[in-house]
């Protein structure tokens, strides 16, 4: 999957399920999910499930840190790092 396709899929997931909109301008790629109240604890867990089901990425316990999961950009960076192994 290309980075653009992954970005599109990830953005759609966050926009539809947590901001309840398809308005693209509602979410900047570097907006913090936590600081902006976009995801709560349950939301983080759902995001992990989504990465598993949509990208076949298993998130390890020590990877569950905001640096990896706190914005569209940080998740994409995390996905790229995982892809490189």
């Amino acid at each position, binding site marked *: 999957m290309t980075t653009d396709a992954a970005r599109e899929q990830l953005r759609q997931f966050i926009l539809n399920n947590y901001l309840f909109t398809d308005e693209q301008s509602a979410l900047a790629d570097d907006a913090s999910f936590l600081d902006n109240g976009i995801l*709560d604890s349950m939301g983080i867990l759902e995001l992990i499930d989504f990465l598993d089901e949509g990208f076949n990425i298993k998130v390890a316990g020590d990877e569950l840190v905001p640096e990896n999961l706190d914005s569209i950009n940080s998740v994409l960076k995390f996905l790229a790092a995982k892809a490189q192994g």
Partner: protein
Amino acid sequence: MCGIVGIVAANPTPPEAQHTVLAAMASRLLHRGPDADGYYCQGAVGLGHRRLSIIDLAGGAQPMQTADGALCVTFNGEIFNFIELRQALEQKGYKFSTHSDTEVILHLYREYGMDFPNKLNGQFAIGLWDVARQQLILVRDRVGICPLYYYFDSEQLVFASEIKALAPALPHGFTLNNQALDDIFTGWTCLPPETIFRDIWQVQPGEMLIVSDPKNITRQFYWQLNYPQNTGEYDRRTENQLIDELHHLLTDATSIRLRSDVPIGAYLSGGLDSSVLVALMHKQINAQLHTFSLGFTDPALDESAFQDRVVNFLGTQHSRRMIDYNQIAQSLVQTIWHTESPILRTAPVPMGLLSQWVHEQGYKVVLTGEGADEVLGGYDIFKEAKVRQFWAKQPSSSWRPQLLTRLYPYMELPKGDASVYLKRFFGVGLETPELLWHSHMPRWQTTSKAKLFFSDNFAASLNDNFESKISRLFPPQAANWHVFNRAQFLEIKTLMSGYLLTSQGDRMLTKHSVEGRFPFLDHRLMEFANRLPPKFKMKAMREKYLLRRMASIYLPPDISLRHKQPYRAPNVAASQDALFNSELADYLTADTCNRWGIFTANKVGFLLQKARAAKALNTSEAQALTGILTTHILLDQFCSRRI
């Protein structure tokens, strides 16, 4: 409980016309008082009453006048100390012609004037007409157990036990109070004197209105919550002395609430509060006590096993009503007609089904443990506030917030270092622990997520906010109160009075002509508890410490020491079947959203899409969906036409 109505007009009204309006108003309160009705029409004043007969079945008809016709009263509720008040008045020479508590109010007013509510121990909403002074006195009990609403313009002041009963006297229909909806979507309740409808007000708990004419209304509080301003003002007796005092007060509060000419039952949840109450009742009643409870088909919510333990120990005759999601869906529309407010969880619905069950078993009165958590310190939010205050002393600490995970063991958190997540969810206000409402900020933040669905136009119509209203709720001396007491004050003034005693209390009880009585809200017990050092409410993280010690007199340790379980009822938003395969679906369509313009149809569509997917909605989302649904039900019932 009964239902009361009344009008004070600027100009005299023909009695027949007055009677017609009062009867139309009272007819909307038939559920509160099915046993009889009565009216008083005199010049510009009319009073009406719908009666649920409980004390002096033959002689307590209302509105009731003094023998000389100088005073007339319409009254909803109970004066539990009426026997003692009557004896004191008889010693002063007053003559009584009935055995009811209503007559005591008339003589008490004559003897003590505007100070009379301070003499009352009870739950009440009173409309009293003083012919000589040409004044109407409206009074509501100290904590808001009995409801009392009013409307006024230059021509008239109209009052009633429920908002719907005002309708026949209003010059126009009901319109939504946008700001009040914003308050409900923050703190679960609007703040008195406001209501969810524009220009409809409520007499506040502990407040008294003196109405000389519709343009001349004086408001004053005869009672207010208060707490010590320094440690020197706390009750300094020993722990054992305080336990004895609590025991004495709760025993007497229960005893006077057993005064009735009809049989009395009790609600038994299986928790500490209702268990100790039932134990006290059991000791005082020389007959088998009938207890009632809810059970839920969803095992995650059901407390039947705990209830059975108490029932077996105390030997009560017990009836349990089992509830499933579909019953809640089927009863929700009718429930909102009675709550007269949007709700964010459907927890009131089972309480309405329970009172129906009680009514069907032939009972009119039940005692419940409501109020113990607020008065004696039982809620998790008090513990949460304690941890957050501790954390705020070192905001950078990573282990201090970990204490919260002990508090909410069921909270799902990412593994690893959870402190960053805890900081996000509970850290709101961490830099401002001095705020009087610091304890409740995380809760309000979670609930406020439901406002994401407000339309731009609706959001633009709001010009005040909940926190600034809350700041006005506190008296000046609150700055010196202990943080634990501030949290108690907020819980009592907001969630207890505005939601638990109304939407989930009075409205669900009176829906089926049942009266609730609440010994833990006896004002003597509350005033005693308010002076307790906080350590006797919560010792370390052990809630309701003093009550537990007292309860051990009556109950075995597995009951008296059981950890507080919040009442959790099925939320309709958790059941796809209940939500989408019932009449409720019509209240969530894009057409309905567009018609009222409060919620953005597109966003509600995405929320429904998420609800239809296999995964459950989280707490905020379920609250939002329930809030949207019940707001539309309320608007349809009250604002789409004249009722």
